[in-house]
């Protein structure tokens, strides 16, 4: 299974001071001078890709990590190489992509069409642009199904595929196709193994059994922080540079919206500060304040 994890490196926004939030003429806060971090939901996508590789039979998964960004992503790229991603690719962006999800999706799609994949994992939204649109635009561009707000995914066992088919009337077909022993290795016919994908909806958890190709847009996946490579692996694999290329040119993708203003709202309140006294004294002040405001 060819798995691609699409990630982005962003400024650590909590490190920006009030001064840093003042935007310049290009409508950018002063984010270039603070440390960077993996976009949180992309981090979960990368970790889920690694877990899926472990869950599949040895050698079955080929992992590629792709980012569209500047050299600030190279440090993360080295970490991913140390985690034994088969390829790490960085595409130099042709434009400011913060609020261009349609262009980001087009660039990623061009890369994917040139080097086909079976499964794409990426975060639902980025910490800076926050468009929450790139996965949908990418899926529609590729004509692929997408599972939004993915929490986890793993190879589906045959019983699970059979049991889960009751709502779609595909129970018998799934059981028959998956074979009696279950698991990815039992999937016959040389096709891709079905995946059990768990996602969040407005009402609860949705578990689906899906045959790739699939785009899984990862949301708030608990306990899916990217693992840390060993020192040995970092030394052995982490020194290889990522493939760096210019993103595809000549894509006729017009902006659908244009950023016109960017302001920092002032949401401070007139705070009463309590910094003296024992914990019991402070608790008493809190209790009184909350009691006075009981519904």
């Amino acid at each position, binding site marked *: 299974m060819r798995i691609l994890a699409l990630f982005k490196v962003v400024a650590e926004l909590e490190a920006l001071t009030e001064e840093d939030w003042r935007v310049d003429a290009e409508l950018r806060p002063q984010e270039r001078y603070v440390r960077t971090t993996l976009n949180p939901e992309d981090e979960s996508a990368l970790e889920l890709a690694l877990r899926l590789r472990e869950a599949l039979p040895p050698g079955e998964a080929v992992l590629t990590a792709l980012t569209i960004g500047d050299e600030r992503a190279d440090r993360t790229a080295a970490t991913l190489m140390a985690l034994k991603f088969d390829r790490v690719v960085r595409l130099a962006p042709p434009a400011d992509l913060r609020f261009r999800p349609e262009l980001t999706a087009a660039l990623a799609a061009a890369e994917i069409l040139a080097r086909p994949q079976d499964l794409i994992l990426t975060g639902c939204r980025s910490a800076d642009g926050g468009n929450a649109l790139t996965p949908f635009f990418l899926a529609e561009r590729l004509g692929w199904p997408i599972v939004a707000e993915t929490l986890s995914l793993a190879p589906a066992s045959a019983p*699970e595929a059979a049991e889960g088919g009751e709502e779609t009337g595909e129970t018998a077909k799934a059981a028959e196709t998956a074979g009696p022993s279950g698991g990815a290795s039992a999937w016959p016919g040389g096709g891709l193994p079905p995946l059990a994908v768990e996602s969040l909806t407005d009402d609860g958890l949705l578990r689906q*059994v899906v045959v790739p190709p699939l785009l899984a847009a990862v949301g708030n996946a608990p306990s899916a922080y990217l693992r840390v490579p060993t020192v040995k692996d970092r030394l052995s694999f982490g020194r290889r540079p990522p493939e760096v290329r210019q993103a595809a040119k000549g894509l006729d993708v017009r902006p659908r919206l244009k950023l016109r203003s960017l302001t920092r709202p002032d949401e401070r309140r007139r705070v009463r500060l309590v910094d003296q006294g024992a914990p019991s004294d402070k608790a008493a002040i809190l209790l009184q304040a909350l009691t006075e405001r009981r519904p």
Partner: protein
Amino acid sequence: MRTIAFLNGLSAALPAQVRALQAFAAARPALRPQLTVVVVPTSGVASPPDDAPWVGEASQAGKKGGLAASAETASVGPRLEGRPGERLGRRPAGRILRLRTPWIQPESLTEVFAFLTSGGRAEPASAVAEALTDVFQALRRAALGQAPNDASADVIDVEPFETALFPPGVFGAEMAGRLAAKLGGAAVIGLLDVVLDGSPPTAVKRVYSQNLLAGFELVQGPYCLALSPDWFGSRAGRPERPATEPADEATGDSADDSTDDSTPARTTGPGAGESGAVTPLAPLEADLASLPTPPRLLGRRETPAQTGAVLAEAKTLVVAGRGLDDQAGIELAAATARALGADWGVSRPAAMSAWAPLDRLVGVSGTVVAPRWCLAVGLSGAAALHAGIRKAGFLAAVNSDPKAPIVGLSDLAVIGDAKPILQELLKAAAEAALSLETRPEDPSPETQALSHGPAAAS
């Protein structure tokens, strides 16, 4: 502006979705939907948003001969290539179309929604087009039913909608994004407002993890707009309660009260004063049960988990963060909340560390709440978290760092190590037998926590 709205009637959150759209449309008459499409279960009783404020206007338009006279009132009617009756009669604004389907199929629904939004111009996949025949017939019957004796004279070209409105949440975001991708329009997820004083319109939303407010010129239509969760529990016309305004206390309004002056009553639409009471038009019905199952989907099972609903109506709330160190710290905060008669939630880092279930997540990626008071413990005050509690009437914080952002964002900030202060607060609340909100179904284990430590109070 011709507007179509889409709602997920298969969700228990439908009433909240309707209220959010009502609040949004209340102060933006130009964006009141002419057609509201509700996806409802194939069987069972759906709760239709018949009381949507724009319905009142529709029925008044209907009383004037069933024809729409204003520019706001669009004709609605998709067409299918090669089908008869492709030109539909004018229909009044505010119609509701119920699409019956056994479950949400995003791929197919995107095609259906694109078909409706484009006025029948979008080309659906052949399998979906079959199902759309039913939709088409329902709309056509309704159109002819409005003017049964004058159908031929009243036929006009079908026009696409300029704006598609979606409620806050997973459904709205996905559908808005996919619809925009399919129709080539602009999409905005997390919409706070639309400014219509210029051309083209400007959409307002928060970006940079809620730290900045952005204004986007909408360049390419149709505009596919999914509301921000700020519109949940909002009073009409305003997504956000000013931080300095303890609205509940000052006005007596509840968070979802609709008695605000800016709320159009059901009789305030154009011409409403002429007859007083309003009779909504009967909803249209169409069946999507024949929508094909995506061939690669072998199975699906949805487990209701009251996601978001756990905290959405919280009147008082304790929110705990990573500053409480571990799961035991979160359990201490939960026990304290119960002793105070309050609900409890956590920040994203705490939820991602699996210290609490996801339905306790507060913030822009979880639940946005508007409680009477909120106590934030062990939180730095990151904007993404603050987005979930900024509507609190009174915000108190406990933090060891006087320079933490949460301090300036609070009405009361207690500086110190959170755990000892929480222990004392739990003890004081239990001793006073204080209960700010009775929750008999949730017996308080605070006494147990006092005896055995926070880990006992799960």
